[in-house]
């Protein structure tokens, strides 16, 4: 019952986010600040993880191809499929739930604890629009992060495969081009946009409605990470079934 209540409250929050908008002159600066914090602030870790995970995917694929009958270009093919279909959009989003999600929950939660949200409401400001809308807007650039993740994941795979002697550069690139379906990219970016919305709103929900003090801010950050990850995994399954199933 508690969970249904929370889900209902979440959707009411989403509705409120889009009502009574803040003046554009103020909102535009808030959006730019959030783009800097949420999107550009995450690029470093994304670049690092994507490159090395792409490399590991290529090595694992190569090492599991025992039969000499299997063509070497399969390493490139498997790396492309893994990175574009799952690693870049889903795995990356779960990492972002930890990085961006906990940042959102703790920053909004601290504002709740220190009565800054009450101060906004007393002034007649729609606190949800002021705090959450810029985050949703900034996360519209999340597909840009994911496209970088896709590129670097494949590049990491190429580097590991060529430098590790598992395939030649030509074989790997052949594998990348074989049986390429543009719809898979569409599927990946469809997921990404939905995950971006989840990454901005579920942590905001946990921060905005938290009660208590500093300890509860920490607890809310953990809870928000868990629920954001759960939502991403469930929605990933549903979208995959709908678009590819």
């Amino acid at each position, binding site marked *: 019952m508690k969970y249904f209540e929370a889900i209902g409250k979440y959707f009411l929050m989403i509705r409120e986010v889009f009502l*009574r908008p803040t*003046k554009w002159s*103020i909102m535009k600066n808030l959006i730019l600040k959030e783009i800097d914090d949420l999107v550009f602030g995450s690029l470093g870790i994304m670049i690092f993880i994507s490159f090395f995970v792409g490399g590991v995917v290529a090595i694992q694929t190569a090492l599991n191809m025992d039969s000499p009958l299997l063509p070497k270009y399969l390493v490139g093919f498997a790396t492309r499929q893994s990175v574009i279909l799952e690693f870049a959009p889903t795995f990356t989003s779960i990492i972002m739930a930890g990085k961006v999600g906990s940042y959102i929950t703790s920053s909004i939660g601290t504002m709740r604890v220190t*009565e800054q949200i*009450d101060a906004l409401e*007393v*002034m*007649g400001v729609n606190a949800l629009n002021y705090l959450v809308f810029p985050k949703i807007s900034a996360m519209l650039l999340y597909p840009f992060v994911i496209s970088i993740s896709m590129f670097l994941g494949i590049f990491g795979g190429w580097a590991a495969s060529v430098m590790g002697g598992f395939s030649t550069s030509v074989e790997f690139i052949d594998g990348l081009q074989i049986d390429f379906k543009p719809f898979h990219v569409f599927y990946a970016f469809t997921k990404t946009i939905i995950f971006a919305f989840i990454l901005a709103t579920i942590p905001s929900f946990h921060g905005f409605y938290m009660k208590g003090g500093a300890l509860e801010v920490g607890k809310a950050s953990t809870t928000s990470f868990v629920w954001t990850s759960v939502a991403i995994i469930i929605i990933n399954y549903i979208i995959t079934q709908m678009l590819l199933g």
Partner: protein
Amino acid sequence: MIVVENLHKSFDGTPVLKGISTTFEKGKTNLIIGQSGSGKTVFLKSLLGLFTPEEGNIIYNGITYSEMDDDQKRELRQQMGMVFQGSALFDSMSVQENVMFPLKMFSKAPLSEMQDRVDFVLNRVKLTDAHHKFPSEISGGMQKRVAIARAIVNKPQYLFCDEPNSGLDPKTAIIIDNLVQEITQEYDITTVINTHDMNSVMEIGEKIVFLKDGHKAWEGSNKEIFRTDNEAVTNFVYSSELFKKVRQMYIEERN
């Protein structure tokens, strides 16, 4: 003027406010006092519209809050200034940005005019050299002054303060009290202060509402509080030896 009629509020079935009725007059510093857990903060937050009471009315200048539409409520909120217990300054903004925030949000005035108003109110609260500092870089007393400046920058009709002296040394507390009283009289606004600081009660308590267990147990002025026989009030106000002696001296002087 704010009129409160038979206000009831409970949380998870536990009643916190049990039928409070009172009037807060314009141009006066109205104090809400009472022990911790007596319902002061809930009462103040109900006046601010942050809590919705289950029963009763709050009437602002003749208009009942519960009968207002959303636009009227928003308009009313823009006429309210609030000083929170912990100041509630936006820690990502400088002092100047904090004070300018309500103006930027609701005023269509040019930036130069807003800047003049910010300079004026910061000057009024005697903070002339802290414009570019951040809340974490100034003292608690200065933070309170910034909070007062932010609360009055939009020329509100109502000023609410939740424990404005908490965490301050006695001298700074008196400065803040006097500042709030001066501003109340200067701008002829309705000020409601939630406090348990007895110095504030004696200094600026033009109207005092004493809450006990969610009820209004007594109301009067700082002059009347010396003469009252109400046991709940005397037990609370004169719990320290210092205030017992002050009361004794006052009574002897009167006789």
